[in-house]
């Protein structure tokens, strides 16, 4: 099916971002405690589920899902909780951007799937950051540990952001 080629490319990019998010949450969670550690664990699970969903969708399209890298270069040093929170927000921004590629596909179901996954990532990013962005996925703030914000003191949301796995259905 020739129409599947753009879909495979966009889904592979989203899968690569999910692999990186799983890694990033693993790093972030190690520097967090209490409610924020729990939120990081939830984020980690959400991205693992999304990764599996995307891999299944790509396989169903006749392609081979991209593998995770053995390690990822962090966008900034992560030695404490503040940087860990910003790392979590950063990986969500990256995931949001990757799903915008899925939104651009012509297939209506994939487009909505991408939009919902983008929304979930934006919700988690806003939870970590404590503030919202005007254009999640389209315009990401510069990476790096930022000035103190309410996000550093509040746990990330788990409500209102159903994991993409829930809507996928490949």
């Amino acid at each position, binding site marked *: 099916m020739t129409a599947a080629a753009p879909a495979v490319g966009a889904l592979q990019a989203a899968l690569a971002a999910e692999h990186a998010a799983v890694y990033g949450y693993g790093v972030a969670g190690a520097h967090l405690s209490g409610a924020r550690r729990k939120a990081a664990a939830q984020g980690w699970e959400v991205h693992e589920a999304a990764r599996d969903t995307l891999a299944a969708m790509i396989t169903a399209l006749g392609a081979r899902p991209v593998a995770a890298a053995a390690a990822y270069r962090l966008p900034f040093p992560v030695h404490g909780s503040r940087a860990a929170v910003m790392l979590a927000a950063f990986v969500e921004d990256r995931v*949001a951007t990757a799903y*915008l590629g899925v*939104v*651009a*596909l*012509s297939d*209506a179901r994939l*487009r*909505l799937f*991408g*939009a*919902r996954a*983008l*929304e979930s*990532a*934006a*919700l988690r*990013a*806003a*939870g970590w950051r*404590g*503030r*919202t*962005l*005007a*254009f*999640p*996925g*389209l315009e990401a703030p510069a990476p790096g540990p930022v000035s103190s914000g*309410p996000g550093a003191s*509040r746990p990330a*949301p788990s409500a*209102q952001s159903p994991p993409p796995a829930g809507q996928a259905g490949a």
Partner: protein
Amino acid sequence: MPGDGQRHGMLGARTVGHGAVRDRRRHDGSGRDGSGREDGGGRVVREATRRGVLATVVSLPLVATGCKGVGALGTPPRPQPDVTVVRDAIDGETLMISRYQAVLAAVPSLAGPLGPLLQQHREHLARLRARLIEPAPASRPAHSPAVAASPAAVQAPGTPTAARAYLREAEQAAAQALLGRLTVAPPSLAQLLASIAASEATHALLLGPGRRAG
């Protein structure tokens, strides 16, 4: 486009026809300046010519349009689907801005937390407007938003808690409305709509109970 070619063909035929009429009348006018007999003869010539011109005017457009009908010229072009989508999204953002303004007028103490969210709605609106090349107001087809989008027309609750709940519901509905238009938009517009919808969903999150907006 074949349609354009046909329209040009029609317009060209008419122009020639009218031009022919005008030229003949000028000629008749100069003849009338002479004797009375010439005047009478001129009238005969003019009528004969008018028939010919009428025949030309009537037949040429039909040939040029392939008998499509004369009414084709008068039909205004219908807006493209993505133009309609952008206009609807612009109306939605305008309404959201009105709601925030109405809330801020009723509950000024919310200015701190709501300010950044209102500013992001203004950014949404600006980005959407940049997508739309508006025709001149006179030629633009009538397009009225479903709800009048002026602060005076919006009734906002008077307490902070109720106001936040009101805006939260409005944000959720706005995000849903954008997602509903996603599949009829071209790819890059769909990306913008999805991003704005995600932004509005995050607004709703921060407006929710137990969270501080802004």
